């Protein structure tokens, strides 16, 4: 009931926003050139649906593949650190130092290194997602109660058993928090890489829209990239609801 009430309020706000937007674009040419109007955007979307869908799918694949690679790579790195605790003393400072570099400035380098195809965008998305997943997982492990570690010692748990029964399950809230941050970052990574050179994608659309002053292309691409980030985020929330019942209940 509470959720329904909230959703109705959101819906009303969106409708008001669309009406004001449409009205304002009819009143001012500058406004229309900058933000277009809901009706023009809808028309544009219907006319260009094939190209827009293709661009969205490409960006989705890049973001998802980057997210998966970052997840696998950060899990493997942290698992290695579980086997050799001292390794973390070396890995963590490198991780933190790597964040000093504004990662999006590496996008041109990735284009040169991996070409204008999917690879450079996937690598960019992966690079940008790695840190939040890794750091959140590590924080989750640090938060595990000291007594639980001691209990694992008493029952002679091996490192593999600790990974299975202790680190992954009890750090799950933090792992999922890291993944939620990473989902939106993955879309940003893919789009920024596309700005620097791509055959197709929402980033390329945004780049062209700014160059050609095409507000409809810009707004449809913006809305589609938001939907993309939202879908990835929701999918993580659904996974969390399924595997993290003990703390989401």
């Amino acid at each position, binding site marked *: 009931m509470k959720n329904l009430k909230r959703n109705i309020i959101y819906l009303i706000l969106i409708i008001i926003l669309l009406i004001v937007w449409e009205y304002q674009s009819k009143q001012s040419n500058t406004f229309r050139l900058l933000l277009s109007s809901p009706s023009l955007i809808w028309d544009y979307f219907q006319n260009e649906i094939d190209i827009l869908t293709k661009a969205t799918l490409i960006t989705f694949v890049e973001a998802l593949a980057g997210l998966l690679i970052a997840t696998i790579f950060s899990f493997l790195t942290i698992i290695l650190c579980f086997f050799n605790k001292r390794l973390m003393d070396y890995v963590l400072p490198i991780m933190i130092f790597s964040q000093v570099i504004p990662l999006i400035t590496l996008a041109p380098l990735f284009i040169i290194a991996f070409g204008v195809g999917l690879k450079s965008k996937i690598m960019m998305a992966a690079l940008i997602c790695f840190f939040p997943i890794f750091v959140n997982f590590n924080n989750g492990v640090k938060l595990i*109660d000291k*007594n*639980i570690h*001691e*209990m*694992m*010692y*008493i*029952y*002679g*748990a091996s490192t593999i*058993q600790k990974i299975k*029964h202790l680190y992954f*399950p*009890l750090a*799950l809230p933090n792992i999922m928090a890291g993944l939620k941050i990473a989902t939106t970052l993955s879309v940003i990574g893919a789009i920024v890489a596309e700005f620097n050179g791509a055959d197709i994608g929402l980033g390329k659309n945004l780049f062209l829209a700014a160059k050609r002053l095409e507000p409809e292309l810009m707004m449809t691409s913006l809305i589609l990239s938001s939907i993309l980030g939202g879908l990835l985020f929701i999918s993580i929330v659904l996974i969390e609801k399924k595997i993290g019942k*003990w*703390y989401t*209940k």
Partner: protein
Amino acid sequence: MDIIVEKLYFSYSEESILNNVSFSFSDVSTIAIVGASGSGKSTLLRLLSGNLSPTAGDISIDGVSPKKNTSLGNISFMFQDATLMPNLTVEENVKLPLKLKRNKNFDFALELIEKVGLLPYKDYLPSELSGGMKTRVSLARTFVTKPKLILLDEPFSALDVKWKTALYKELEILRKEFNATLLIVTHDIQEALLLSNNIIALNSKGKLLEHIKINSKLPRVFNDNAIFNHQNDYKKIRNLILEN
């Protein structure tokens, strides 16, 4: 079970926690270590479990080191809080030590859950249980590996008198059934008198003050005048701790 502690010292960096502690027990069933906060009781327990190594001195349990005993599954530990896995149900929590030890005797876990009266709650998560119920799960888990020595770190300190009375009885019944040796650390002299036949007192500097023997039948419960019968022992231990 023979427990020998010889000239035991332990310090964290510069801070001395235990100073020249020596005691030995042979074939005793219940031991309590009492002392004020910061006297090193819990540290002593962790040295006995092998989780910490002494700065100097020796510990031997049935002729072998605590670490060896722990790896053999001879030692079990009950913590101050129940220390349950929040992601596992009551049943899964009790089964966990068996899984870690690759022991498939899961029926025994259910038997223990029934013994502590939690069979109807076996599918509950720890967050759905009261403090006393959590301690009961922890009690069942402590016995599931059939340990020879059970180390207890003030596991009942957060419970009310009603739960304590029930759990003291359950603990003694299980201890007798599995013929285990029980070693509890507590700051509560009354609890020590109710649960053990041998009490050792530590002062605030981690030095052993005295070993007191209690000669009456266990389990002793609040309503059988146990404390009244041991007034002198109570005063003796209290004065030892207060004066040192």
